[in-house]
C-alpha cells in the first residue's frame, strides 16, 4: 500500500466533503460565555425565574403544542424531533404509512401509529407511556422473515444500545415518542410490499438508579463511581447527559467495548443478557411488532 498516497486521497476527500464545516468567528467567545456561566452557577446553566402567571401560560401553550404534536405523525416527530423542519417533513409525508399497533403491560403502554419507508430507509415512530424507569433495546429488524445484514453497507446497526428512558426512582409517568430507523443494504423496489417484524426489549432497574457524574470522562474516579453504584445493586446512569437527551446506563471501563460482529465480544455494551446482569436490571417484556409496508 502506498500510504502517503492514501493519506493524500483521504485528506482531499475529507477536506472537500463538508463545505459548510467552517470556522465560527465567535467560537472562542461562545465557549468562554458557557464556561463562565457554568462556573457562576456551579455547573449548570441558570434558568430565569418565571412568574406564576407566565408559567401557567406556558403550561397551556405547551399542552396545546403537545396535543397538536401527538396528533401529528409519530415517525416524523421521531425523525425530526425538536428540530422539526416543516418543509422537509412535508416532503416525507408521502412515504409515511399508517400502522395500528397498541401494547399494554400494566402502566406501560406502547403505541405505533405510522412508519416511513422509501424502499431504502425504514423508520418506525413509537409512543411510550411509562410509570417507571424504562430502558429500550431494539433488536434487529426482519424483512420478509430474514434478518437484515447490517454489517455491510450501513454501520447504522453496529450497536443495539438504543438509549431510552431512565430516571431516578422518584419517577413521574411520562409520555415520549421514540423510534427506530434503519438504512437497508439492499433497497426494496418501489411498489413492493414487505412484511416487517421487529422486537423491542423493555428493561427496568431492579433496585433503582443512581446518577454518576460523567463530566470528567475517562477519569478513574468516574469508573470507580460506576463500579460502586453497581456494587450497591443499583443501576448507574449518567448525571449530566448533554443535548437534552435521556440519561444513559453507564458501563465501567473494564467492561467497555464495541459491538463488532467479527469479534467474540459479548459484553454489556452489545448483549442484552450481559447488560441486564451488569447493570442490575430486569427484562420486563419484549414488544413484538409485525406489520406490512409498501416501498413508496
Amino acid at each position, binding site marked *: 500500500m502506498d500510504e502517503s498516497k492514501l493519506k493524500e486521497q483521504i485528506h482531499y476527500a475529507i477536506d472537500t466533503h463538508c463545505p459548510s464545516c467552517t470556522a465560527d468567528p465567535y467560537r472562542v467567545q461562545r465557549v468562554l460565555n458557557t*464556561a463562565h456561566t457554568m462556573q457562576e452557577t456551579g455547573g449548570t446553566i441558570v434558568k430565569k425565574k418565571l412568574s406564576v402567571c407566565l408559567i401557567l401560560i406556558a403550561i397551556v401553550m405547551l399542552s396545546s403544542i403537545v396535543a397538536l404534536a401527538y396528533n401529528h405523525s409519530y415517525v416524523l416527530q421521531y*425523525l425530526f424531533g425538536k*428540530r422539526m423542519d416543516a418543509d422537509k417533513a412535508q416532503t416525507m409525508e408521502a412515504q409515511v404509512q399508517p400502522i395500528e399497533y397498541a401494547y399494554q403491560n400494566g402502566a406501560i403502554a406502547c403505541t405505533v401509529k405510522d412508519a416511513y419507508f422509501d424502499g431504502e430507509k425504514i423508520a418506525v415512530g413509537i409512543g411510550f407511556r411509562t410509570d417507571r424507569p424504562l430502558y429500550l433495546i431494539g433488536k434487529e429488524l426482519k424483512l420478509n422473515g430474514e434478518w437484515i445484514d447490517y454489517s455491510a453497507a450501513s454501520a447504522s446497526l453496529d450497536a443495539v444500545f438504543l*438509549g431510552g428512558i431512565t430516571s431516578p426512582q422518584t419517577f413521574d409517568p411520562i409520555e415520549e415518542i421514540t423510534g427506530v430507523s*434503519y438504512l437497508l443494504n439492499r433497497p426494496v423496489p418501489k411498489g413492493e410490499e414487505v412484511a416487517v417484524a421487529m422486537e423491542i426489549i423493555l428493561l427496568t432497574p431492579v433496585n433503582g438508579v443512581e446518577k454518576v457524574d460523567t463530566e470528567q470522562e475517562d477519569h478513574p474516579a468516574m469508573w470507580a463511581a460506576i463500579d460502586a453504584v453497581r456494587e450497591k445493586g443499583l443501576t448507574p446512569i449518567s448525571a449530566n447527559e*448533554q443535548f437534552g437527551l*435521556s440519561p444513559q446506563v453507564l458501563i465501567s471501563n473494564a467492561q467497555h467495548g464495541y459491538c463488532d460482529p467479527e469479534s467474540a465480544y459479548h459484553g454489556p455494551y452489545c448483549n442484552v443478557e450481559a447488560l441486564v446482569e451488569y447493570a442490575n436490571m430486569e427484562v420486563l417484556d419484549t414488544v413484538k411488532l409485525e406489520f406490512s409496508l409498501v416501498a413508496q
Partner: protein
Amino acid sequence: MEIVKDPGNDHEAILTHLVETYEVLLFRTCYMYLRDRESAEDAVQETFLKAYKALPAFRGDCSEKTWLMKIAVNVCRDIRRSSWIRMVDRRASLDLLPEPVQEYDGWNSLDLAGAIMQLPVKWKEVVLLYFYHDMTMREIGEALGVSASVVSKRIKQACAKLENILGRGYLHG
C-alpha cells in the same frame, strides 16, 4: 514548547490558539464521525468547552493535539451513543451528500469520504486519526485507550474494509 504546556499562558489565550489551530479540522472530523452537521457542530463546541475546563489538569503527558483529539473522540462517542437512535436517519446518505468540488486523479473523493463514513466506529476512528490527523499509532493508542498494536491492526482492517466497500484497487487507481 506547545502553548498549552506553557504555564505562563493564560487560559483564554490557549483556547484562542486551540480554536484557531484545530477548529476546522475538528469540525470535519466530527462530521465524518457523526455523519450529521448539527451534531458535529455540537461536538466541536463541547470539545473546546471540555478542553478549556480541563486546562488546569493538563499535565503535558501527550501532545496538545493528542489531548484534544482524545476529548473530541470521547465527545463524539458520547453523542453517538446518546443519540444514535435519532442519528440513523439524520445521517447524510450518499445521495444527500454535496457533490465533490472536482475529480482528483481519476478517483472520486465523494465515494472515498462516503466509504469512510460507513465504516464501523472503531475503524473510522483510526482512519480519521491516522490518515487525516497524521497522528502516530502510539498517539492514537493514547487517545483511544488501546495499545499501538491494536491501532495497527485496526488500520489494516479499516483499509481492507474500505477496499471491500469501494472495490479492490480503488484506493490506488
